[in-house]
């Protein structure tokens, strides 16, 4: 269970990005996780939800995109997703294929609401 540490790293990355955007509020952080990354999406989401409560960004949601393993055919150049550990090229049936992705653990995007502080909800009544 190292997903808690990974969730913290994601929040650190959000914090670094938000420093450049004073007054804005992060609403969604997108990450891409390959099937060979050794990271469980449910455990990561659980850890993230727990940690985000400790921050000022209670509305921040984690959006996980699961990425399958891909191989590239060395014979015809076809790029394909691996299913059931079958590495043969579905286009030309060549067995000469090479790893082309699926171990990603990457930040994809951050959605922010600009000028959050200017919202009328934050204006104190006299």
């Amino acid at each position: 269970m190292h997903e808690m540490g990974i969730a913290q790293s994601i929040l650190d990355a959000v914090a670094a990005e938000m420093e450049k955007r004073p007054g804005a509020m992060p609403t969604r952080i997108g990450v891409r996780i390959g099937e060979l990354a050794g990271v469980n999406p449910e455990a990561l989401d659980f850890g993230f939800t727990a940690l985000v409560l400790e921050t000022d960004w209670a509305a921040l949601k984690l959006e996980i995109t699961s990425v399958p393993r891909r191989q590239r055919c060395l014979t015809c150049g076809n790029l394909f997703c691996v299913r059931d550990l079958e590495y043969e090229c579905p286009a030309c049936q060549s067995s000469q294929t090479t790893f082309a992705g699926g171990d990603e653990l990457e930040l994809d995007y951050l959605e922010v609401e600009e000028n959050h502080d200017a919202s009328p909800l934050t204006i104190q009544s006299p």
Partner: protein
Amino acid sequence: MTQVPLQSKVLSENQRIADSLRERFAANQVLCINLVSSPGSGKTTLLERTLEGFPPETRVAVLTGDIQTERDAERLARFGFPVKQITTGGICHLDGRMIERALADWPLEQLDLLLVENVGNLVCPSSYDLGEAAKVVVLSVTEGEEKPLKYPSMFFKSELLVLNKTDLLKYVPFDMNAAKENARKIHPEIEIIEVSSLTRDGMNEWFDWLNRKRHSFLAKLNTETSQPQQK
């Protein structure tokens, strides 16, 4: 609403440290090997047999990671080489910063080989680069031949699979060929050796692999230094 593209690694801070460790290992020509496996597969015993087989002048050191206790370091220190325990206090893997801290007072220029024994865990250590030249995964025959399929990331990221405890093959229903086939399904290029750390069968293949790895590591460093980057 604004969407900001990020396109960076989640563990970029660990990656930064791992890259700087890799540079230090290269500058000092230290081959660093990261041993990973589930708990109880025999990493420490394999390291005992390894240290025992080295001549006393060998420039080797060991960092050994565990959640608690100094026991592995005590076992490994008997062979007279520098050994340091990293106690993670609950963390299920070693990360770059722990290695950096452990190496702070070790002169790397006095080493040729650094063996890192990761925390016993077949999942989490696969996410953390330690600046090593290669990961080696140890799988004991009592664990079953389906482990590579159940825990693919570790087998995918390792260059060598050590099938350990072969002395127990006569007692357990372990299909050696299926284990190798499963590992190659996940990682077609993985090298595989069979070892018994108890009877020392297969230890020569392990030493051969370490020697070959050291030669290819040094050869790679030489080509990198003799061919300066084109601007």
